[in-house]
């Protein structure tokens, strides 16, 4: 007689929240800007543990049964709010505590499990995914990541049960992507026991339901005799006097989610509710968003699959010219292109979730890559699905137009795709920039710096001769792996050339940043596909058994590398001056193009 009674669970490394910690941890994407391939960070593909897989299956089964009985996404879109049973059901299922650690009443889900569930909720109703994500991906994530023991004990159990819904207050009327422009202030009282919080935050998801806000505001400090302001994070009880909520915003999509303005007027926040130290607000906001973004990627991937499922069923059934429209190649092209990209998007968010769970890896740029790629895919795919459905796609009776509206937000919130592209490019340029700066200094004092110059020159020579390569990719993908490695090599050299040419001025050159970011995104997606497909082949036992996966990989990677190669080439050969002239003319005239001949 044997017993397999599960041992009392000890918090495992997988269940502890990890920070990206960009200052300390190695980053795959930063590496490629140096022409390096950190294969150890992306191989092996992070397969889910059996225990995770089993809990995930149970959670998904429960959620799907609940969704089938209770969630009517079209009705929610029409009414602009959730029926009470939807929120109550989410709370009863325990969904609100999905990624809150077990010791504070949550489920302590790994990033892999959490984001997979996020995707399922998004596929059932995108507005509900916003409710779920605004709460724990960002709303109370700051408390989980940075809260003191007392703060965690005070707030997280309520958040986990859904009794306290959380919201994240960063954006202001004058401060969106530019968080430094923040106007909200938190002024300490004379005795230091509290802060007086003033300011207006806009586009706050979950504001109407919120029991607690994570709020960012500037605290006045004196440094070296000078008055300065330092962004700081606070946990604010929604019941505090001085908080007023605006009316719910009328939005294009995700209408069920409650989005409002929140105004803080002399709100007294106990000093004990400060999250982290004065001045740590930025770092806290970035870390929260670093991991929060992954949920949007997972939800976008799953949403793509769902709306295309509608379109696929339609394409099989709709007959024209005596055959199903799915048999026409113009329809098949849309299906295949979205399939290969969904395969890539799934591979990338799962690889990145694995990094989050593993810890000790900087995943900040990778989550940004995933969010950008998946959000643009989901919007494009919804549009393709609508096109496949033709006239009925445009009708409100079918789910396509709602999918287009709902998926549109993902390109905007939790960092617009533009600001994220700038983030990827500028962050990744820091390391090569510093190398070159050190070199610049060395040249000013060459006699004492021969070593530095010598090692740089040797390094550059080595980089030009020894190209990076993959050792862990399955042999069936050798050509694809070689193509990716070659592009990484080219990117490293191009970045160096770019920095030598533009120096610090690159901060102003967003045409270039966009190309760098686009190349980085395509490279990361391709690497994720290499990692996953290698795993799929091993799992399936043979190349033939993984034919469906290989087909996607062999379509996606060459296409992505063609785009990346074009982007890298355009760093040198481009029409940027002309593009700038056209844009500035249009801005000056507030008229897009030269007057049409009919208007002359």
């Amino acid at each position, binding site marked *: 007689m044997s*017993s*397999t009674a*599960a041992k009392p669970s000890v918090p495992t490394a997988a269940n502890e929240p990890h920070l990206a910690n960009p200052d300390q941890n190695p980053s795959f994407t930063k590496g490629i800007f140096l022409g390096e391939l950190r294969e150890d960070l992306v191989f092996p593909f992070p397969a889910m543990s059996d225990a995770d897989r*089993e*809990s995930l299956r149970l959670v998904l089964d*429960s959620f799907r*049964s609940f969704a089938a009985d209770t969630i009517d996404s079209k009705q929610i879109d029409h009414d602009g709010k959730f029926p009470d049973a939807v929120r109550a059901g989410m709370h009863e*299922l*325990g969904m609100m505590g999905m990624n809150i650690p077990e010791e504070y009443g949550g*489920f302590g889900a790994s990033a892999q499990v959490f984001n997979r569930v996020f995707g399922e909720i998004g596929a059932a109703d995108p507005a509900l995914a916003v409710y779920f994500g605004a709460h724990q991906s960002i709303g109370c994530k700051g408390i989980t990541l940075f809260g003191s023991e007392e703060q965690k004990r005070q707030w997280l159990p309520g958040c986990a049960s859904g009794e306290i819904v959380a919201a994240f207050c960063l954006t202001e009327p004058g401060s969106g992507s530019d968080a430094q422009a923040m106007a909200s202030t938190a002024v300490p009282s004379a005795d230091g026991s509290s802060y007086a919080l003033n300011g207006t935050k806009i586009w706050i998801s979950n504001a109407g339901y919120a029991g607690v806000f994570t709020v960012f505001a500037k605290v006045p400090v004196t440094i070296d005799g000078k008055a300065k302001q330092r962004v700081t994070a606070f946990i604010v009880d929604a019941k505090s006097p001085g908080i007023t909520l605006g009316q719910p915003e009328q939005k294009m999509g995700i209408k069920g989610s409650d989005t409002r303005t929140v105004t803080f007027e002399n709100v007294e926040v106990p000093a004990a509710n400060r999250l982290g130290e004065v001045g740590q607000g930025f770092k806290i906001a970035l870390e929260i968003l670093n991991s929060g973004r992954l949920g949007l990627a997972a939800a976008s991937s799953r949403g793509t699959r769902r709306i295309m499922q509608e379109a696929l069923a339609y394409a099989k059934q709709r007959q024209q010219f005596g055959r199903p429209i799915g048999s026409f190649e113009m329809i098949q092209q849309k299906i295949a292109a979205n399939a290969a990209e969904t395969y890539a998007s799934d591979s990338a968010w799962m690889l990145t979730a694995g990094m989050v769970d593993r810890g000790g890896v900087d995943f900040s740029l990778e989550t940004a890559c995933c969010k950008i790629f998946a959000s643009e895919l989901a919007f494009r795919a919804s549009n393709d699905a609508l096109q496949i459905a033709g006239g009925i796609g445009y009708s409100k009776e079918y789910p396509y137009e709602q999918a287009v509206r709902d998926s549109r937000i993902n390109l905007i919130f939790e960092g617009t795709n533009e600001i994220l592209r700038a983030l990827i490019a500028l962050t990744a340029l820091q390391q090569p920039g510093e190398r070159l700066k050190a070199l610049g200094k060395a040249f000013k004092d060459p006699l004492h710096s021969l070593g530095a110059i010598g090692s740089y020159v040797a390094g550059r020579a080595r980089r030009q001769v020894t190209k990076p390569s993959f050792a862990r990719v399955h042999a069936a993908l050798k050509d694809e792996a070689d193509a990716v490695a070659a592009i990484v090599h080219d990117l490293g050299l191009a970045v160096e050339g770019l920095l030598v040419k533009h120096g610090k001025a690159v901060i102003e050159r967003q045409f270039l940043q966009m190309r760098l970011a686009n190349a980085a995104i395509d490279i990361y997606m391709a690497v994720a596909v290499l990692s996953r497909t290698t795993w799929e082949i091993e799992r399936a036992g043979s190349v033939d058994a993984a034919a469906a996966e290989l087909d996607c990989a062999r379509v996606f990677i060459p296409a992505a590398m063609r785009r990346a190669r074009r982007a890298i080439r355009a760093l040198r050969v481009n029409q940027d001056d002309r593009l700038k002239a056209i844009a500035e003319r249009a801005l000056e005239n507030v008229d897009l193009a030269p007057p049409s001949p009919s208007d002359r």
Partner: protein
Amino acid sequence: MKIAVCIKRVPVMDVRFRIAADGKSVDETGLKYDVNDFDLWAVEAALQLKEKTGDGEVVVFSLGPDAVQEQIRKALSMGADRGVQLKADRAPADPLSIAKALAAELKASQWDVVFFGKVAIDSADQSVGPMVAELLGLPCVSAISSLDIANGRGTAKRELESASEIVEFPLPVVLTVDEGLNKERLPNLKGIMAAKKKPLEVKPAQLDAGTVNVVAMELPAERAAGRIIGEGAAAVPELVRLLQTEAKVL
């Protein structure tokens, strides 16, 4: 109140089944599994009974390979207290073998109620529950659609072809659960987490060789394709004629 529930791991039915190369079993590749629907209602009935009486224990039994632990843990995540796997390479085709193995295990304790689902949706024998009752020397009420237990006695309703009957019985008893008795609760995250810490004992199933064997399995004949007779009113006389003479339904 000490309550046992016996559950079976069955394939999820929304797939096209294929017959394996041996010609007498189902090809298991690509199948997904869950707890048999009727057994989920049995688990729910057990949990409700425990909650109503305010104390006691719900123990879940399942016979089969280690994979059945997944189904046992689902029942644990719904709220059952502990699980027992009667380990066997596979569940045998002879329901009497299964019933004997379950009875041998159940006999070791005193139970107030032993619940089964009325039928397993895959093998459809409807016999393990009643056989276990016989082997344990307990009364058996099969296919119950309502249940009330108080003061050591029970009342249950059974749906018949075109009527229903109310039966009374003493405890201990073996009950098999029909559709309509309840709607099973969904495991919530707390339950799923708690289930990981609940005891799940593994014991070898005391299986005999059995005397009933499946010798062949075949899929139902494909339905003949439909036929389009024509369009509009003009086609009606021909349609009526064919429905009368060929389909013989009018």
